């Protein structure tokens, strides 16, 4: 019994990482209808940044988080203006997907060539600190990961609800043309959205680096899982995305515990297909959400 609880806890902690990635995907997809399949590779890229800052310069991963996030916001805006602006304007689904795929290929290959395909992980001095609570082991770094995920989720949700730009983002998600009639500049809104998406990727990347090992090609797998989490949570729902991620983490780890890693993956996708078929608006979704 204790062991299952351990798996459940791990599932939640792991899943929160998927959740953070999913929020980013959700925002980008919601406003621009872009399936940003490169999200996973971007997360891995940031994991590498975290890793190198730690290994070469000795900077603690949680301290490097701040500059990394700032850089990521700029990068996100850069991605939008540099890569996706035209496709977003034309609502070109295939085009934007292909661009995202191109970016993913580029990043994966770049990281493999430059940093070698060997797995890495950030191991800090406190990385082995474990709390023992009611017979369950809680790794410090994973707890911090969960905490960061929660903070990010609340942060983004608050931003969307309470700020003017956040409200503009929500409006643009719903109806771009009408939002331009309010004087909202869709490019600025999209750039902000993308920036947040990449910022969340940076956060997830740090969590990934400090809690698990990663390699350059992990990106696609991660992106697919984020997509699953997004679907479970329902597009456009920030808290939903986080919960979707956690649910996914639970399914994955419980599945691994009961039937082994390989089949657990199959279960994940089976759940995905079921969710798509029967609850496309998310498990928590209402009867008629905007798509």
């Amino acid at each position, binding site marked *: 019994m204790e062991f299952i609880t351990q798996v459940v806890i791990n599932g939640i902690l792991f899943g929160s990482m998927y959740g953070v990635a999913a929020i980013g995907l959700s925002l980008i997809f919601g406003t621009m209808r872009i399936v940003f399949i490169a999200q996973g590779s971007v997360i891995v890229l940031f994991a590498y940044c975290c890793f190198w800052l730690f290994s070469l310069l000795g900077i603690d991963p949680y301290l490097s988080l701040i500059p990394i996030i700032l850089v990521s916001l700029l990068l996100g805006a850069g991605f939008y203006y540099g890569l996706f602006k035209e496709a977003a304007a034309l609502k070109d689904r295939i085009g934007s997907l292909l661009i995202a795929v*191109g970016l993913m290929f580029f990043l994966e*290959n770049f990281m493999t060539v430059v940093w070698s395909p060997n797995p890495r992980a950030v191991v800090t001095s406190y990385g082995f600190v474990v709390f023992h609570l009611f017979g369950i082991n809680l790794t410090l770094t994973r707890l911090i990961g969960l905490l960061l995920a929660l903070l990010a989720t609340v942060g983004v949700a608050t931003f969307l609800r309470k700020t003017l730009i956040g409200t503009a983002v929500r409006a643009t998600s719903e109806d771009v043309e009408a939002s331009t009639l309010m004087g909202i500049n869709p490019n600025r809104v999209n750039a902000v959205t993308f920036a947040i998406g990449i910022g969340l990727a940076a956060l997830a990347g740090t969590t990934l680096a400090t809690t698990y090992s990663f390699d350059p090609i992990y990106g696609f797998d991660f992106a697919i899982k984020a997509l699953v989490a997004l679907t479970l949570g329902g597009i456009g729902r920030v808290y939903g995305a986080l919960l979707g991620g956690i649910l996914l983490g639970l399914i994955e780890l419980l599945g691994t515990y009961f039937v082994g890693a390989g089949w657990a993956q199959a279960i994940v*996708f089976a759940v995905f297909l079921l969710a*798509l078929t029967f609850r496309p608006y998310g498990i928590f979704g209402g009867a008629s959400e905007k798509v």
Partner: protein
Amino acid sequence: MKDRIDTYIKKDKRKISIIIIALVIIAFGTVPFYSDVDSFFSYYLFICFLYIILAQGWNLVAGYTGQISLGTHAFFALGAYTTAIIWLHDVTKTWYYFDPLVMVLSGLVSAIFAIIIGIPLLSRLRGDYFSFGTLAAAEVLRILILRGGKFTEGAMGLRLPGEGFTGMGIYYWTALLLAILATAVVYFITRSRIGLALKAINEDEISAASHGIYILKYKVSAFAIGAFLMGVCGSLFAYYLFIVSPPAVMNLNWMFLPMLICILGGNGTILGPIIGALIVGALFSYADVYVGQTHPMLSGIIIILVMKFMPTGIMGLKDRISPRR
């Protein structure tokens, strides 16, 4: 008077098109005679033909159902694995090697898989959700292959006995034939009354909803035919490569390159995928040789550049109007 002239011109255009097509086919068909059949050029064209088959299959689904399928690599792989398994287990007691019956069977397996996932996905999901669904189905297949034990040999893949190899020629012509066939199939289906009617209905969601089951039948059929073409293509590739493994046949390249080809060539046209395949094939196979290890990086950049600056493709360049905004 003007109308009669127009009709004459149309008839002439038709004749000219047919002559051009015939010439092109002859040109491609005779390549192995004037260029060394085992040369890189033949290999390049062979790969182009494979991509044309896949692209036309994808094109059919995209045009007919109005949905973007992200499962091309799954159908391709299914065809390849079916062929390999049949061959290794000597299921059909006919030729060991390069058996058309096996190729057809491989295509059928893919088509059946398409029907199985097509019915739930096409009936319930629209747009991006459908695409996610096909991607998920493809990943499920990948896992099944990896976990297939002795049957599929997991990540290492199946090795096929190489004695039958007699030279590039037969592959080349088979690929060319299949490419022509695929193009013809797609051409006739999309130009048929059913094809045009479906296209109109796709653009009107309310109409689509009220036509329900009949639409579904045709959509699933298109999906299955596309899958069949992809499966046969996979079978041919298996015969060529002698190794069938996830990296070889379930590579994401097989999924998105056909899409890129259709877009580059010009979305929704029949000639488009052919032109697109020739260009993309050139970029990727020569890049593979010269730039080797970093070629996916280059590929990535190329895709991005193409989509940014030529989203309507090459066929679209000729009638580019300035965009709205």
